[in-house]
């Protein structure tokens, strides 16, 4: 899929920019950044559906796909739970966005910060849009869970290599992996998305939360207790991630948006 237009969620961009409420200069900065980025977007995604099951061997949990591929990790196994199918998913804003961000970094450090925040908001929104599209293709009674990315919980970032070989996303969407498992273009997301076979309330903006709060450990570091969770590169979740974060007094905690309680985050 290639859809050049992505809804610009300014509130999210401001949150990633770590702006305080009502900061007009910060608002102007993300607006300006969006103007510079919007013509550089070349978003693409790819998703492959697999049957899956959780297995345990020698005390280690794995998620095994029906093509034989295995991903390792307790958090991932808990995430997949009793789901019998999942999507392996990859999305990118394209390399022109990286070039534009580098351009901003040369010009002004504030512009660069606003640009990073804006691009992060855009890729997250794009992923949400893609998931909605995938959701629409599911039969009645099935729904997608939120996205779960390598590096998240105890799922090793190195397993990006496996995920990339399954997706073949260099060929399909131009998303590549560096030797140290970084994605290039940078503003990209990979994840698995479990397909739930039971009808249960969707995890949306505080309406209902089907998943337990998750204090995410990354290499022993409790992200919920850290300075926030604004980095797409580190944590890639769908829109309601604050609801699962244990740091309830976080200054950047996403509140239930009064003016954006549209269906954007509902995968229906």
């Amino acid at each position, binding site marked *: 899929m*290639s859809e050049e237009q992505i809804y610009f969620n300014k509130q999210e961009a401001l949150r990633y*920019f*770590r*702006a*305080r409420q009502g*900061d007009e*200069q*910060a608002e102007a*900065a993300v607006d300006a950044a969006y103007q510079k980025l919007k013509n*550089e977007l*070349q978003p*693409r995604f790819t*998703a*492959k*559906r697999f049957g899956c099951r959780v297995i345990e061997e020698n005390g280690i949990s794995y998620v095994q796909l029906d*093509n*034989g*591929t295995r991903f390792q990790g307790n958090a991932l196994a808990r995430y997949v739970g009793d789901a019998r199918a999942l999507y392996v998913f990859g999305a990118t804003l*394209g*390399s*022109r966005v*990286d*070039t534009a961000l*580098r*351009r901003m*970094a*040369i*010009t*002004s*450090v*504030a512009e*660069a*910060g606003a640009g*990073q925040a804006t691009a992060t908001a855009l890729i997250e929104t794009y992923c949400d849009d893609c998931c909605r599209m995938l959701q629409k*293709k599911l039969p009645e009674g099935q729904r997608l869970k939120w996205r779960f990315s390598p*590096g998240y919980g105890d799922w090793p*970032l*190195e397993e990006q290599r496996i995920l990339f*070989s*399954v997706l073949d996303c*260099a*060929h399909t*969407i*131009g998303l*590549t992996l*560096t*030797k*140290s*498992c*970084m994605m*290039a*273009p*940078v503003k990209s997301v990979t994840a698995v998305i479990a397909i739930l076979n039971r009808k249960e309330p969707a995890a949306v903006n505080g309406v209902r939360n089907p998943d337990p709060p998750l204090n995410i450990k*990354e*290499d022993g*570091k409790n992200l919920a207790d850290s300075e926030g969770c604004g*980095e797409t*590169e*580190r944590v890639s979740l769908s829109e309601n991630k604050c609801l699962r974060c244990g740091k309830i007094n976080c*200054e950047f905690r996403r509140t239930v948006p009064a003016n954006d309680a549209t269906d954007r985050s509902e995968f229906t």
Partner: protein
Amino acid sequence: MSVLDFLGKELLYFDGAMGTRLQAAGLRPGELPEVWNVTHGDVVASIHASYVRAGANILKSNTFGANALKMQESGYSVEDVVLAAFQNARAAFDAVPEMPAERKFCALDLGPTGKLLAPFGDLPFAEAVSLYAETVRAGVKAGADLILVETMSDTYEAKAAILAAKENSSIPVFVTFTFDKGGKLLNGADVETAVLMAEGLGADAVGFNCGLGPDLVAQLLPRARAVTNLPLIANPNAGLPVEKDGKTIFTTGPEEFADYMLEVYREGGSVLGGCCGTDPDYIRLTAERTKGLQPAASAISGDRFVTAVTGYGAPVYFGRGPVLIGERINPTGKPLLKEALRNGDMDYICRLGLEQLDHGAHILDVNAGLPGLDEKAVLCRAVNSLQAVTPAPLEIDTSDYEAMEQALRLYNGKPLLNSVNGKEESMAKVFPLAKKYGAAVVGLCLDENGIPDTAEGRLAIAETILRTAARYGISPKDIVIDPLALTVSTDSRNPSIDIEVIEALKEKGIHTVMGVSNISFGLPNRDAVNSTFFAMSLAAGLSSAIMNPQSQRMMEAYRAYCALSGADEGCKDFVARYADTLKAKTGGAAAEYTLYDAIVKGMAEQGRAATKKLLEAKTDPLDIINQYIIPALNTVGDGFGKKTLFLPQLLMAADAARTAFDELKKQVSAGGQENAARGDTIVLAVVKGDIHDIGKNIVKVLWENYGYHVVDLGKDVPAASVVEAVETHRAKLVGLTALMTTTVAAMEETIHLLREETEAKILVGGAVMTQEYAEAIGADGYAPDAVAAVEYANRVFKGK
């Protein structure tokens, strides 16, 4: 016989998909199709044979991913799978004796490496060339009849593959790209850009494959045809892929595909085949539909005399409105640029480039010639750095042939090369390079006897240049003649000589370029003379000018000329630019705030204005730093620490302080003084393997604002380079950042090496770091944010 004996003279047919058919035969997801050349040779051969029976006379070897990167864990060498691939293809041809032997060709198929090339990813260009070269050598050994570089979605990678093919073989090279519906590659290059570059690099045929179905390829094909005379290839998919029941299927059936391929043929396609989702039926029906047809007239007739240069975005055409070449990246008479080149400050050079583009330049001239400097290394770095931030074309400007070759080689696109002249030596050195790397060349009207003082003399040299270029296989369309502007102050005939040369060349359809401002050397009010001469030259037919796009009068002359000549239809651009001229003539922001307030409030333009005001009042620059800038930054830093100010304010304050420093630097430079004493030196780097540098950039700006001299090594920096920089600059402090868990090991390795080789203090930061982590890997300090990094540096250097 060679495929070139048939190419463009009769229709040729590629085969269709291999990968999807291998999957149908049992290839598992994640399994390398190329390995099947060895393990399931009979299956591969039988798929090939099915295409030959369908009418394909060019087989794509099953070597799409046969490069050392992909094969490294397969248990097979590149040569193993390539040799087996050709045995299979030959066996398939042998199995169909009814097809004449002289019309059977095996193409060595080269697909993408699966990596993004630096600076967009982590695969260095030279390494990409080496990877392809290995496969090409194996293909030649295996008896390939031609090379097909295919499914290219990045011009830079395509260039690496084409260079490898040309440098390691003498067989024909075909190139096909994968565009999106809008006619763009994944790196943003247009159809025209990709085709112009491939043609320049010596491809024998170019075209389209994968990504799109034949209907969309038929729509894009005229865009390729408009810029090249090369035969055009079309290997589309069987329509666009859609997912059904968890499987990818293609929407266009064989009959419909063949109907569209007839359309592709009519639009100029003369080498036809298929890609993903196609099978022998698609090829058979395509061959049947086009049986007996000759390549369409549009594909073989008419010389498309298109003079254009490209980066990796849209091309810049000569002859379709004046082309502006920004001249400012040239150190002559520019002390700040000289300093930046000596210090390797590529950010400064990039800013110069971006400013010129913002002001309307179409192409950037890049000259890094400075006595005592390794021009080859600096020019290449400048070209790489500029291409990391802009897809605009560059003009590589050097008289050092080694620097010229390296810069041309590294360049992404079809560059403009400045320059060749009528001297035998110059032409003998420059033309082979221009030919190999597909550059358009500026030809200067001078030779061993100097610059003729008549138009006839200069035109004669232009003729010599064009004639000699043709001997090297360079078309006149790739030569842009510079009549050479000499100052009117020494001979009042000089301007009219130029005008006469421009008019005569325009008559012959040859494009021109001129460094316009040379006309006014030795005169006062040079802008007035330059802009008037510029307008005269444009009216005479000058195609392009090397000029300063930040000169208001030059840009006014340019825009007015475009409006008056019809190049700016309906004067739209002119009106858009100047409708608010009166409002714009305020001469920049007036200083309404003190410098302290401007920085605290994060108002960059106010910071600049306040600094100017202080300088006009003869305030000592050091006082400006100590009494205004540092206290303001301290206030912001304190507020950030206490969480009364947030990240945006911190960054905006840093920007405002930087504009103040820029003004101070200009003052020092204009006064002809040596650069003010540098502060203490800090080396800063993002460690090897990590490509995220936003945090590093913030720390750099803050450190610089506090007067430190920061040696910024950039991102993905090997440990040895950090150590070398610390030793070279005798730095007492090193800042290292890493964002991801996967690069902490590289940070630890860098720290170990620094400990062994230097005594520098080591400060670490980055999203993945914590105080505990920092201690565990042996760092001296940890900075959770940029303000903490400043505090740490102050403690190290000033004991504060």
